[in-house]
C-alpha cells in the first residue's frame, strides 16, 4: 500500500500502474502479437535460414525489423513482470477467494502458456541461446517417460537436426499464444466491466519506454547455433528461462515436482485456510421490481435477471448466485428501494446483505448520530477494506463501516443531512481505482455526481459532503482532510431549511 501510495503521487490515481497490472499485461500481449506478426513475415524456417532471416531483420532492417524484434522481446518480458506482480498483488490483498476463485485458477494455466510461448520463441532464432534452450528443454522433457526415444537426441550432433523441426516450432509458437488468448478471455468471464486496456497516458508512456529501450539496447542473437560446440556461457532471458539453471542444480525430477506442486498449491489457494465465509446477498421479491441495476452493477456477475416467478407485474426478478457472491453490498447501494426514509413497515429493500442489513445500518446511523454534539457534527461512511474509520469516532464524529463504500445508497447522505442528524457527511473507502471489490468506489462516485442510478438528489448541498478516499496507510492525510472539512462546515453553519420544494424536485 505504501508503494501504491508513492505511485499515486507520481502518476496520479488515474494512471497509477499498480492499479492496472492485469490491463498492462494485456497491453503487452498486443504489442507482442503485432511485433510478432511483423517478424514472422520475414522469418524463414530452416537451417541456417532461420538464423539468417532474424539476422537480416536485426542488422539490415534495424530501423523497423530490428525494433519490432526488440519490442517483441521486451514486451514479452514486461508481460511476465506484470503477470508476477499481478499475482503477488491479488494474493497480498486477499483478492483470490470467494467469487474470485474462477479468475484465480484460470490464471494458473496462463503462467504455463506464457512461459511455454516464450521458450518456443527462443528456439526459433537458432542461435547459441536457441541451442541451449532446445537442448535443455528436451532434456527436461525426457525425464517424463512418454517418449519412445530421448527427444534430446534431436540436438545430439549437427546431422541430427533438420529444417522441419522449425516448422513444428513455428506452429507451436503461434498456436500457444492463440490458446493463451482464449484462456485470457476465459479469465475475465466472471469479471464484470473488466478493464483490459490501461489508461491512455500510461499506455503511451510504457510504449515510449519500450521503443527507447529497443533503440538503445536492441535485441540481438548470440551467434549461430553449432551442435559440435556446447552452448556455454549464454546470456539468458531470466524472465522465461530460469527453469533450466534450476534443472542443472536440482535435477529435472525436482524441477518437475516443484513446478507441479507449485501449480497445484496455487490452484487450491482460494480454498486454503483461513476460510472466510460470507453470507451472500438475498433478494426480497416483495420489494424487487426487476430494474436490473443490481445485476448491472455487480462486479462479479453474481446476479442474474430471470423471468418473474411470483406473478408480480414485472418482467424480471434478480437471482443471486451464492457461490459467486462476495457480499460486498454494491447491489444494495444500487437498489432504488434501499432508502432509509421508508418508515412504513420494515425497512427491507429489494436486495440486502444479511450480515449488515439496511435496517441495521439505519439503526446504527440513528444511534450514532443521536449522541453527536458540537458546531460541526460529521457522519463518516467508511469501508471495511480501506482505512478503519472507527478510530476517528468522537463527540462530533459518528462512523459506520460497510463491506464496501459502494454499498452506500446516496439517499443515506440525504437522510442524515435533511433530518439534521449531522452537519456534514464524509464518504471514504479504497483509493480511486483501488476498490477491493473493483467497482464500489467508482459506482458511488458516479451516483454522487448524478451520473448513475440511484442518484444523489439535487437538494443535498454538495459542500456538506467530503469524499476522502483513503487506504489503511492514509490515516494522517485523512485526519487532515477531516479537520479542514470541520472548519468548512463550521463556516457554513448548521444545516438550514434546505428541504426541497416540489419545484426543486421537479427540476431533477
Amino acid at each position: 500500500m505504501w508503494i501504491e501510495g508513492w505511485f499515486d503521487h507520481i502518476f496520479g490515481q488515474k494512471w497509477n500502474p499498480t492499479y492496472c497490472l492485469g490491463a498492462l499485461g494485456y497491453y503487452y500481449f498486443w504489442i507482442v502479437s503485432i511485433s510478432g506478426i511483423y517478424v514472422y513475415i520475414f522469418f524463414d524456417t530452416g537451417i541456417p535460414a532461420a538464423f539468417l532471416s532474424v539476422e537480416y531483420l536485426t542488422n539490415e532492417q534495424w530501423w523497423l525489423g530490428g525494433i519490432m524484434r526488440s519490442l517483441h522481446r521486451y514486451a514479452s518480458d514486461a508481460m511476465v513482470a506484470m503477470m508476477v506482480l499481478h499475482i503477488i498483488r491479488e494474493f497480498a490483498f486477499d483478492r483470490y477467494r470467494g467469487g474470485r476463485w474462477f479468475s484465480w485458477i484460470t490464471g494458473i494455466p496462463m503462467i504455463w502458456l506464457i512461459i511455454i510461448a516464450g521458450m518456443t520463441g527462443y528456439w526459433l532464432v537458432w542461435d547459441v541461446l536457441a541451442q541451449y534452450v532446445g537442448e535443455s528443454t528436451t532434456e527436461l522433457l525426457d525425464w517424463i517417460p512418454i517418449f519412445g526415444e530421448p527427444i534430446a537426441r534431436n540436438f545430439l550432433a549437427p546431422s541430427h537436426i533438420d529444417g522441419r523441426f522449425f516448422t513444428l516450432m513455428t506452429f507451436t509458437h503461434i498456436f500457444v499464444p492463440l490458446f493463451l488468448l482464449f484462456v485470457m478471455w476465459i479469465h475475465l468471464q466472471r469479471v464484470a466491466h473488466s478493464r483490459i486496456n490501461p489508461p491512455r497516458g500510461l499506455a503511451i508512456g510504457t510504449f515510449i519506454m519500450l521503443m527507447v529501450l529497443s533503440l538503445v539496447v536492441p535485441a540481438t542473437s548470440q551467434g549461430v547455433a553449432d551442435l559440435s560446440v556446447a552452448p556455454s556461457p549464454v546470456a539468458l532471458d531470466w524472465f522465461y528461462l530460469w527453469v533450466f539453471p534450476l534443472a542443472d542444480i536440482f535435477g529435472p525430477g525436482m524441477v518437475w515436482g516443484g513446478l507441479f506442486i507449485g501449480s497445484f498449491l496455487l490452484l487450491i489457494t482460494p480454498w486454503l485456510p483461513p476460510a472466510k465465509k460470507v453470507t451472500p446477498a438475498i433478494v426480497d421479491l416483495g420489494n424487487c421490481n426487476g430494474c436490473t441495476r443490481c445485476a448491472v452493477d455487480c462486479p462479479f456477475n453474481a446476479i442474474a435477471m430471470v423471468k418473474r416467478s411470483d406473478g408480480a407485474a414485472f418482467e424480471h426478478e434478480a437471482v443471486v448466485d451464492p457461490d459467486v457472491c462476495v457480499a460486498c453490498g454494491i447491489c444494495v447501494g444500487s437498489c432504488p428501494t434501499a432508502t432509509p426514509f421508508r418508515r412504513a413497515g420494515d425497512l427491507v429493500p429489494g436486495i440486502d446483505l444479511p450480515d449488515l442489513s439496511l435496517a441495521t445500518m439505519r439503526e446504527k446511523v440513528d444511534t450514532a448520530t443521536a449522541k453527536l454534539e458540537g458546531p460541526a457534527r460529521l457522519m463518516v461512511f467508511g469501508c471495511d477494506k480501506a482505512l478503519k474509520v472507527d478510530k476517528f469516532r468522537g463527540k462530533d464524529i459518528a462512523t459506520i463501516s460497510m463491506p464496501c463504500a459502494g454499498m452506500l445508497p446516496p439517499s443515506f447522505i440525504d437522510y442524515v443531512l435533511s433530518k439534521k442528524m449531522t452537519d456534514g457527511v464524509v464518504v471514504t473507502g479504497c483509493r480511486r481505482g483501488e476498490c477491493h471489490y473493483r467497482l464500489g468506489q467508482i459506482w458511488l462516485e458516479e451516483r454522487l455526481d448524478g451520473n448513475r442510478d440511484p442518484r444523489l438528489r439535487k437538494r443535498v448541498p454538495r459542500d456538506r459532503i467530503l469524499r476522502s478516499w483513503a487506504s489503511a496507510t492514509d490515516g494522517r492525510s485523512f485526519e487532515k482532510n477531516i479537520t479542514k472539512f470541520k472548519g468548512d462546515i463550521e463556516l457554513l453553519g448548521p444545516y438550514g431549511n434546505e428541504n426541497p420544494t416540489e419545484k426543486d424536485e421537479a427540476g431533477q
Partner: protein
Amino acid sequence: MKQIMQYIAQGVVYVGFAWFLASFAAGPDYARIPEGQSLIKFSFAHSAKSKGGCRKLSQDELMELAPNMRKPEVCSRERLPVSVKLSMDGKVLYEDDLQPTGLHSDGPSKTYQRIVIPSGNHTITAYLKDTVREEGFDYISEKQINFLPGQSLAIDFTRSGDGFIFE
C-alpha cells in the same frame, strides 16, 4: 511545478523499469559448463537381441498359419538388456545395463548422458553388449580426440556399420 516534478518522477520510474527489463532480458550470463571443460553427449536407442532366441517352425506349424503370417522363424518378444560402458583414458565415465522399454520389454534400450570432461587430449572408448554372451562386449570403439574448450562430442550407436559413431 508539481506537474513537472510528477513527469520527472514518471520518467525515473520508466527508466527504472527499462533498466530492469534490459538487465534480465539478456543476462546475466549462465555457464552450464565450467570454463576449460568439454562435453560428451552419449546417447542411443538400440534394441538388443531377443531374450528367448528364435526357433524355426515345422512345416505343420507353418501350414496352420494364414498364408500371410507364415514366417519361418518365431522369436520371443522380450529383449535382452544392453550393457554399455564409456571410458576416458581407461577411467570409466559411465556404465550401465539398460533394460528394454515397453510393457512387454520388447522396446529399445535407450540412454542420453551428458558428461563434462576436462579439455585436452583423451582416449575415448565405448563398449556395448547386446547378446547373451557372458564376457566381453559385442562392439568396442576407441578414438583419440583432442578436445577444445567448449567442444561437444556426440557418441551415437547404430547396429549397421561400425557400431559407435563419434561426431
